[in-house]
């Protein structure tokens, strides 16, 4: 459908389009991070692309499998042409340093929260973003949860938690509805078998 767009990109930006594929019918272009915003701008303004609808920005962490480590993924859609494209750029080293890329907020202001989220979850810094704060996690949170090296169960409580001595206390066998309102007598069951 939008093979066209890929061709346009290749002809327009040449070597800055590192690779392209159309797996599962999604047209994808991996581009040079330095040209990120420029290409985004082009996609929006060029009448043949006319990507006027912002869809999604996220990232993928390829820890230990690829360098650069992060893949910033942008999806945009054109209402009039009814075609989509996925733009990808690879940034950041194995420690996650230098994960920087230009913000496309000036191009689509919808990128605002999506870039904040990507920053929050992956620590990818979007230069030129108006306010790059955490959005889903709280400011006190250390680290970036969706990185593959962040342990899924590592909590960082804001307030000290009560220690519940035996947290399954109330879940004991003989707890629950008082005698008056039970569907049936559990003790008798236990006796019968």
């Amino acid at each position, binding site marked *: 459908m939008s093979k066209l767009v890929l061709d346009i990109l290749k002809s327009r930006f040449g070597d800055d389009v590192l690779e392209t594929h159309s797996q599962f019918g999604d047209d994808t272009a991996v581009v040079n991070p330095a040209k990120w915003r420029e290409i985004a701008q082009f996609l929006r303004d060029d009448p043949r692309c006319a990507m006027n609808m912002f869809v999604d920005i996220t990232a993928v962490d390829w820890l230990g499998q690829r360098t650069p480590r992060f893949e910033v993924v942008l999806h945009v859609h054109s209402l009039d042409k009814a075609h989509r494209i996925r733009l990808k750029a690879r940034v950041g080293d194995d420690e996650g340093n230098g994960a920087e890329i230009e913000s496309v907020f000036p191009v689509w202001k919808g990128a605002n929260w999506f870039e904040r989220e990507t920053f929050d979850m992956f620590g990818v810094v979007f230069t030129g973003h108006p306010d790059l704060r955490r959005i889903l*996690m*709280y400011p006190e949170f250390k680290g970036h*949860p969706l990185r593959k090296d*962040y*342990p*899924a*169960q*590592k*909590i*960082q*409580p*804001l*307030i000290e*938690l*009560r220690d*519940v001595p035996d*947290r399954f*206390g*109330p*879940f004991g*066998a003989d*707890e*629950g*509805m*008082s005698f*008056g*309102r*039970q*569907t*049936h007598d*559990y003790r008798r*069951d*236990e006796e019968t*078998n």
Partner: protein
Amino acid sequence: MGEMTSGSGGSSIRVLEGSETGFATTRFDDLLNWAKKYSLFQYPFITACCAMEFMAMASPRFDMARFGAEAPRFSPRQSDLLWVVGTISQRQAPALRRIYEQMADPKWVFSFGTCASCGGFYDNYTTIAGIDKVIPVDVYVPGCPPRPEAVIDGLLLLQDKIARGDREPAIVKPRQDPAVVAGNLVRLGKKSTTET
């Protein structure tokens, strides 16, 4: 000299006959608890999926008003029953604790659903594994989300506890019909009946 017990929870009212206007004696606490249990002002602390079932509870079909617990107060200071409905994230926890601290005694906490009770299957970096890690809880209602019937059970259980002046945490048991259990389940001895 007839005796009748009021509702449940063992509080007893002795009705003395003999005079044309009968009068009753009871213990003051019982009377007070009896009054409390039927006038629960709730503060719905609603966050997640369970809100759907909470709506269902409030709406005509499973009418919470029947139990004198319908009046919502959106100020913690005016309410005495805190419904925690849904997942509480680490970020939400301080708000929840503050709300709880703002409520005036006597106050009860109703943990609505699995997430509120133990964190549910959100066993990760952002979820509180059960609100009892933040505030004390009176009644746990399991279910994801719990069916309104279960919630009603929980409500009645809570009223029971109030009447009995009992602050031990309690959990609503999943209802099970022995016949169904016998028919459908592979009986694995005691456990299957006591725990399913």
